[in-house]
């Protein structure tokens, strides 16, 4: 990335905030409809402790749910991607499960586990494991058949092929999916908190909107967005470190 491209990622949000601020002031939009960025910043600052109290809970449930999703999703992906039987028997069920709106499942989870932490973790998990499983499975299922032949002719079994080729090959797919999944995990935990919890950004926003403290609602949104970006960046960095070989394809080789 050049310096100019880097600047773009800062410049555009700043510009949008400026326009937003100017519009709110210029058109005299009441703050209970759309608070100006300055009001949101003030709400954020004034409620720093309460926001921290709630956002730490959201971060905790999201990270736990996501961690479980990574382990479960990767294992499921390996299973589905390396066995045709597992693929044909599990895939339709997975697609069906993923099509169910998770918001409809939260009340059931509340009946089973009570309100609070557990349903939030589970919702974050349910929303985020699917892209991981699908991506890992794709990485495994697209092994070049000739490479498979090379190993099979050496007496390799399916497990050898998965270990030597499948798993390293699916790492770029895994990391690509982690970046998507972490943001989905936030969506999951916030949905659950909004519906049934005493703590978390979702709870904070529900209460704030019930009290017409719209700028606090927006402050909550800002915090979620910031946490989402932070986690995304962390995984983008890990991805770059772990799978440098996959993004170097465009570099010129030494031979001619």
């Amino acid at each position, binding site marked *: 990335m050049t310096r100019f491209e880097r600047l773009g990622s800062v410049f555009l949000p700043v510009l949008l905030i400026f326009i937003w601020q100017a519009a709110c002031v210029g058109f005299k939009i009441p703050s209970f409809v759309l608070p100006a960025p300055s009001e949101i910043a003030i709400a954020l600052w004034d409620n720093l402790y309460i926001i921290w109290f709630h956002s730490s809970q959201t971060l905790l449930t999201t990270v736990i749910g996501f961690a479980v999703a990574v382990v479960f999703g990767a294992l499921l992906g390996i299973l589905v991607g390396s066995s045709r039987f597992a693929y044909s028997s599990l895939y339709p069920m997975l697609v069906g499960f993923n099509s169910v709106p998770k918001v409809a499942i939260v009340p059931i989870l509340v009946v089973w586990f009570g309100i609070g932490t557990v349903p939030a973790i589970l919702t974050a998990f349910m929303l985020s494991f699917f892209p991981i499983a699908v991506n890992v499975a794709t990485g495994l299922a697209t092994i*070049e058949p*000739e*490479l498979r*032949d*090379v*190993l*099979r*002719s*050496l*007496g*390799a079994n399916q497990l*050898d092929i998965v270990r*030597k*080729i499948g798993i*390293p*090959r699916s*790492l770029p797919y895994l990391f690509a999916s982690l970046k998507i999944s972490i943001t989905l995990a936030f969506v999951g935990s916030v949905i659950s908190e909004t519906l049934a919890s005493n703590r978390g950004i979702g709870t904070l926003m529900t209460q704030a909107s019930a009290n017409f403290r719209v700028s606090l609602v927006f402050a909550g949104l800002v915090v979620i967005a910031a946490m989402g970006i932070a986690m995304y960046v962390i995984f983008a960095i890990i991805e770059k470190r772990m*799978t440098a*070989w*996959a993004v*170097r*394809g465009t*570099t010129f*080789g*030494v*031979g*001619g």
Partner: protein
Amino acid sequence: MKNLVELVNVSLSYGKTLAVSDLNMTVAAGSFAAVVGPSGCGKSSLMKLVTGLMPATSGSVLIDEKEIDGPVNIVGMAFQNPNLLPWRTTLENVLLPLEVVRPERHQFRAKRKEFVERAMDLLRIVGLDSFADHYPWQLSGGMQQRVSLCRSLIHQPRLLMLDEPFGALDAFTREELWDVLQTIWLERKFTAILVTHDLREALYLADKVHVMSNRPGRVVRSVDTTEFARPRDEHTFIDPKFNENVMELRAEIRAQRLPVDIKTTTAETTP
């Protein structure tokens, strides 16, 4: 000389399509065989049959005069696509078979030094020893194919199967690799089966060239080329007998192509 590979009345069908039928072929131990034929004649099926990756529908495939019923561990394979693993260096790519094949896989840690030495020897022959720590994306197509060749030979297979290994390379690189392959073969004297579309390549490298018929494939002719002295070089290409053989094989393959009625085709295209 004993036969390492023997195919007796072999047929192979994928569902209803018959890929090869009544295929008979023998490859003497330590010899270099080439298989040519029109496209879609079942040359790749032959690869799968000989390596035991696919069982014959009928007939028998014999290796060392014993009928096989699964993958045989004496094979090294290289394909048109080098298929190197992008996360491994040249050296690590070459070592891959030793991590899988028995008994070497169980000795891999203990004997790593010896195996690395073995890999470096091969890389030296193909002229890539200074690229051992490079990644595939840093190598040209020809270099990648050399690495693939080393990988197919690292476990010292008795049978090397080559499926159009030079098909995707430019003419200069291709001819250069013919000599690389010839050098290795003369040094190590394994048995080799080369499947190719290139008649000059087949005649240049092999002791015996087998011509396959149209689908369903079978061997319709075998040409002995041991008369061309080894090591062969650019002089072989201008040997009149060599060119005569090329012409003969070309005529044979042309005859194997599906007959096209020129009159009807012209009639259709003319308004």
